[in-house]
């Protein structure tokens, strides 16, 4: 758990599965194994997984409450789009796409830094208010920049987002955040959630930890925004309003805080649900807030709630659990602890 490398038998399983997944993600569009509509939904699911997992880092693992994730997504979407449309030449676009996405993440991370430094001086609810305000500010600023179309939106992007790209980024996101939360540094993130004073007393620089985790969270939201923009090929400030942020919150709490698998499930279920209920028209928009209310009343911990799917736990961590708890049946406890389902 002290950041040691994975070891033991399970070592190759995750990379192998990831590779198989990639081949599938590549083969599906190449040989048109499923209809383009389902392929589109798969890509939405992937983007939503990135948004959910990254927000879970701040709201779940670190126990803060950020509510404006769509703001970072917007920054990423516009940064990437302006780059591919205005800066990169038409022919080179597809090759420079990864660069545009990295820039999208960096842009969002930079905005996060600007917000985090003042707002983490104080604790608690301030972050919710600040991120809410940020979300509104980002939207208004974009609406007032004529160069990117202002309130009319921005278009001209090629459809550069493909299933393999989405897949690769989902894997990078999950891998990075998994490695973070199971490192000693990540234990510091959990300590901030558990008891901030005690965290400081065992030597965790709580302010640095909070700012850095927040930036990482924003980075992946920015990349997700870049992918989203090059899937839709048309972005609009209203795509990134409070409603979008609420949807991401719903996905986080539906899946369960402090759980990677929870976020994957939450994002997948919510995305599919939203598609399946398309016939409801505008009423569909009632779904997210309603679901959030019901969730808080009926199952506040979400689907996974601080537990983790064993496949997402580093092998050396798992080996440690197995030594003490012989073959626990249920999903292992995660997001904080090594005690396997006992």
């Amino acid at each position, binding site marked *: 758990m002290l950041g040691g490398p994975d070891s033991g038998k399970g070592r190759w399983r995750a990379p192998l599965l990831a590779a198989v997944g990639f081949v599938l993600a590549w083969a599906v569009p190449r040989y048109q194994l499923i209809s383009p509509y389902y392929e589109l939904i798969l890509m939405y699911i992937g983007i939503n997984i990135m948004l959910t997992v990254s927000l879970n880092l701040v709201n779940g693992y670190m126990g803060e409450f950020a509510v404006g994730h769509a703001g970072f997504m917007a920054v990423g979407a516009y940064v990437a789009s302006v780059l591919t449309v205005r800066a990169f030449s038409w022919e080179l676009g597809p090759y420079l796409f990864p660069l545009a996405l990295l820039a999208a993440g960096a842009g969002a991370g930079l905005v996060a830094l600007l917000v985090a430094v003042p707002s983490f001086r104080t604790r608690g609810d301030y972050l919710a208010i600040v991120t809410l305000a940020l979300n509104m500010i980002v939207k208004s600023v974009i609406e007032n920049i004529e160069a990117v179309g202002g309130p009319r939106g921005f278009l001209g992007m090629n459809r550069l987002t493909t299933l393999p790209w989405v897949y690769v980024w989902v894997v990078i996101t999950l891998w990075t955040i998994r490695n973070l939360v199971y490192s000693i540094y990540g*234990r510091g993130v959990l300590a901030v959630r558990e008891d901030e004073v005690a965290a400081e007393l065992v030597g965790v620089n709580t302010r640095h930890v909070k700012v850095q985790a927040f930036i990482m969270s924003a980075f992946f939201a920015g990349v997700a925004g870049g992918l989203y923009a090059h899937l839709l090929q048309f972005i609009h400030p209203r795509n990134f309003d409070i409603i979008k942020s609420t949807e991401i919150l719903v996905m986080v709490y539906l899946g369960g805080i402090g759980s990677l698998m929870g976020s994957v499930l939450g994002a997948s279920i919510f995305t599919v649900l939203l598609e399946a209920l398309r016939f409801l028209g505008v009423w569909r928009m009632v779904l997210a807030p309603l679901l959030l209310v019901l969730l808080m009343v009926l199952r506040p911990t979400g689907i996974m709630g601080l537990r983790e799917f064993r496949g997402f736990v580093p092998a050396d961590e798992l080996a440690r659990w197995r030594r003490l708890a012989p073959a626990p049946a249920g999903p292992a406890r995660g997001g904080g602890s090594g005690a396997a389902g006992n």
Partner: protein
Amino acid sequence: MSEPLLVLDDVSVSYGQIRAVRGLSMTVHPGEIVTLVGANGAGKTTTLRAVSRLVPIASGRILFRGRDLTRVPAHEVVRLGVCHVPEGRGVFANLTVRENLLLATYSRRDRDRINQDLDRVFSIFPRLAERQHQPGGTLSGGEQQMLAVGRAIMTGGELMLLDEPSMGLAPILVEEIFRILTEINRQGTTLLLVEQNARMALQIAHRAYVLEAGEVAVSGPAEDLLDHPRVREAYLGG
């Protein structure tokens, strides 16, 4: 006498308009157990919080091994060798006992000593070894106190600040905790102990400071204070 480990020189701490500690001066020497006794609101906890830099110091200096802590942030104070067992223990409830202990090594780089210290904690507190894979929140009050002390040991600090370690514990557990504290001190850790249970604290301490309204009222060797009329009357029940 040896060079003092900790010196408080005319330290004052304020919460807004209220001055919780006024012009407090005291010293702690290596290997000692020093206790701060006094009534509620006398400034005992605030003094500890000032040393570990959880509260800002209004005036005065705090020197640890000759180094001024006044401008050092809390997480750095730990690295310098001051560990603080806070009031209410501050156990990470959703992390296992073992994770709680290992988190205390967050800023330590001496990996081999860490394992030694972990063994030491488990030998002092066999209960923690038994429960090392249980979430901290599932421990009893006494076990959580042991975990908090164990965690302080794991920071590798040489000065341990203890804030009301006996609070809320059954009398038999209080005896146990105090016995263990004496043992930890014998193994080389200097203790600065804040206690409401003045009698117990004075029995294990070498020296004591009695605080009243944020100032030192009486100080001296602990056994003398046990017989001091003013102390007897105010804190030992006559």
